[in-house]
């Protein structure tokens, strides 16, 4: 009866196991903050290469932002004005969105509300594959197919122009708009739909009276992410815009974008030269623009979740 109680068995993990776990958790922590380090690093390294020109008295920020004259290698008068490229980027992006938004939102509505589940899965896979086509291939299509098409259809003086690039960008940003837009529509509670249907609304009435207003923020985020993709796209616009520095007066005029300008000129510029630093300054400008666009998209998404 009074036998001594058995000593409790205590599993003690060996010290090295605990140490290993600590090490792994430290590693995980470091990886976790890697994104912050990298974003900081990107800004730091791009800004570092740009800084000497920004600080130099020869460089006027006003001229940089508000002059259309881009003559980085001129023998007579070197000028670094990127206004035409800012306008070019805006023109191409705006037109691309004007094409992509109706199609993208329409596609999202169809996927989320109208088609059968089986068809939806198939279409989603196809749209995912569309998103996978590399941008250099889009550029190649612009150069070889769309170029001829625009000359034949519209008598365009040159087939590499705003419209050509906008068509490609629209196709490239459609998958993002469709998939994020569909998520946004799906996130609207079913009770909304049921309420609509109970009142005798058809599906279409329900979509456009109930779902679209309810999913407004999410759809806005989808469009903004599409904009981000279009602004940042490089190879396709390099090959399809015609790469001419000018303020376009029509859809069939060639333009140049900020991204394409860096890609085109960085390869041959000598390191540390003014031109090199100005190209990095354009990089800083682009970083800023896309940072704002993405932040706005993120805020829109959070607004939806709230």
């Amino acid at each position, binding site marked *: 009866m009074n036998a001594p109680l058995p000593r409790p068995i205590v599993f003690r993990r060996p010290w090295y196991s605990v140490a290993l776990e600590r090490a792994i958790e430290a590693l995980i922590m470091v990886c976790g903050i890697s994104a912050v380090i990298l974003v900081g690093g990107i800004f730091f390294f791009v800004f570092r290469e740009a800084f000497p020109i920004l600080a130099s008295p020869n460089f006027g920020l006003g001229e940089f932002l508000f002059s*259309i*004259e*881009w*003559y*980085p*290698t*001129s*023998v*007579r*008068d070197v000028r670094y004005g990127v206004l*035409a490229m800012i306008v070019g980027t805006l023109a191409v992006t705006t037109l691309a969105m004007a094409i992509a938004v109706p199609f993208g939102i329409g596609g999202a509505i169809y996927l989320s509300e109208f088609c059968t589940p089986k068809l939806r899965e198939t279409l989603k896979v196809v749209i995912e594959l569309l998103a996978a086509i590399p941008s250099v291939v889009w550029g190649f299509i612009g*150069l070889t197919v769309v*170029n*001829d098409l625009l*000359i034949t259809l519209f*008598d365009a*003086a*040159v*087939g*590499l122009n705003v419209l050509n690039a906008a068509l490609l960008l629209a196709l490239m940003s459609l998958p993002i708009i469709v998939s994020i837009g569909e998520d946004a529509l799906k996130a609207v509670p079913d009770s909304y739909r049921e309420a609509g249907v109970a009142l005798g609304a058809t599906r279409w009435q329900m979509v456009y009276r109930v779902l679209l207003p309810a999913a407004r923020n999410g759809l806005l985020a989808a469009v903004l992410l599409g904009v981000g993709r279009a602004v940042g796209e490089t190879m396709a616009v*390099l090959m399809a815009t*015609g*790469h*001419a*520095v*000018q303020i376009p007066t029509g859809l069939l*005029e*060639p333009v*140049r974008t900020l991204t394409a300008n860096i890609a*085109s*000129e960085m*390869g*041959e*510029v*000598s*390191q540390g030269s003014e*031109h090199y630093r100005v190209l990095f300054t354009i990089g800083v400008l682009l970083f800023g623009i896309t940072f704002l666009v993405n932040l706005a998209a993120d805020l829109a998404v959070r607004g939806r979740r709230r």
Partner: protein
Amino acid sequence: MRALLSHRRLAVGALAVSVLGLAACGEGGPAPRAVLLNRGSDTMINVAQAWAEAYATVAPGVSVEVAGGGSGVGIAALIDGTVQIANSSRPVKAAEREAARASQGADLVEHVTGYDALVVYVHASNPVRSMTLAQLRDVFAEGGRLTRWSDLGVQHGTCPRDTIIRISRQSSSGTYDYFREVALDTRDFKLGTLELNGSKEVVELIAHTPCAIGYSGMGYATDGVKMLPLSNGDGPPVAPTAQATLDGSYPIARPLYMYTVGQPAGETKHYLDWIHSPPGQRLVAAVGYVPLPVPAPGPSGAPAPEAHP
């Protein structure tokens, strides 16, 4: 649960294999060979590559690695000592010579390896017959007045909008530099000129664009485009031909240079000698440039004239 665990093992295994494979690549590279690094002008990249490729069969122990980037980049790399041969479609500048003396303690030595003629191309359907350099300036240069084909006295039926579409190379390329210097008298291009990234792309786009005019190397001609004879001043128009390039009558032609630091020796010398030999020069013609006149100048290191032919 067991199935899931085995998936994990599979994934980890796959990762391990890929990492091991990479480690193997890192160490077990190709057998040691002599490597010649060759960098510079994009104009010359085709011919430089042709030489590199053919030389691999002539001298299997030597690997020639070619990169583009532009004449300035190649010369800068030569001055830094990161390449043995720089390709340049322009003569070196005095500042570059000094920089080489300062960092390498030797002079840059020039080797002419062939000639390039820049040709003004228009669409094959364009009725224009020839142009003067003055007209070319008025079409391309800032302040020039010619913007329509009818301004040149041409009724261009396949270009209904009549606009002249100007096609150029990108502003950092040697070809752009050379065209601006010789054809535009160092004036800047008009805004709105299309700047493309490759000599081939220029010709290809002209072949698909009836309204276009542009310039590119002689070797890039295709069936879809027409080469325009050019006249300088009051002289008769001269068609871009090998003969006209060599005798200097064609106004926009230039030598293709290779530079070394000091007189070349060893593998570098063998390579340059081979480039100047008949097999090397045949490749120059094959790529579409103009080979050196038959009694080739000294194999290497012959001081070349400063001026363009």
